[in-house]
């Protein structure tokens, strides 16, 4: 399935990418998490969060064709 993956803040700087279109062969958020972690080993240590279609997502959640996934470190607004 095709996913749109967006990186924010420090993760965008580390990955050197803002948005990418990914052809994803897995099924769940956890599968995507593993792919992203293996490309960016630092992310998990920094507390990677994943949102799907603008909602925080559990690892057990299914992904679907056309989903927008956001990958980012813990938030620090205020």
């Amino acid at each position, binding site marked *: 399935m095709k996913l749109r993956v*967006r990186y*924010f*803040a*420090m993760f*965008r*700087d580390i990955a050197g990418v803002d948005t990418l279109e990914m052809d994803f062969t897995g099924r769940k958020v956890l599968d995507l998490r593993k792919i992203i972690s293996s490309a960016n080993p630092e992310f998990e240590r920094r507390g990677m969060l994943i*949102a799907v279609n*603008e*909602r*925080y997502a559990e690892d057990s959640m299914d992904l679907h064709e056309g989903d927008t996934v*956001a990958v*980012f*470190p813990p*938030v*620090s*607004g*205020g």
Partner: protein
Amino acid sequence: MNLKVAEEPIDTGRALASLKADTGGAVVTFSGIVRAHEGGRILKGLQYDCYMDMAKKLFQEAGEYVVHRFSLLDLVAIHRIGFVAPGETSLFVAVSALHRSEAFNGCSEFVEQIKKKVPIWKKDIFAEGGESWH
């Protein structure tokens, strides 16, 4: 309820004037102001990054949550993003309630919710050069 994430400087007077408080009681406001120093180093300012669509959604949800939980009469909040210089306001929140404990607790809890959940990130920009994400 009026919630906004925006690049422009925050006009706190105008935001406060838009808060419904006509039945009286208590109004509590919070302003988060960019510090001049961070860890002993002089700051040029903070750069706020934001996942705008999600931030707006979670900002709205945090507002609805605290208005309901603390029986607030109204809530107005603005989070500024982009570059914010020391002394400038990055987050302004104003709440009205019939009683002061609801107003204090509602305002304080809204700020907690924002800091915990809304996808906004800040980076220190140091006067002497150099940057550091929080």
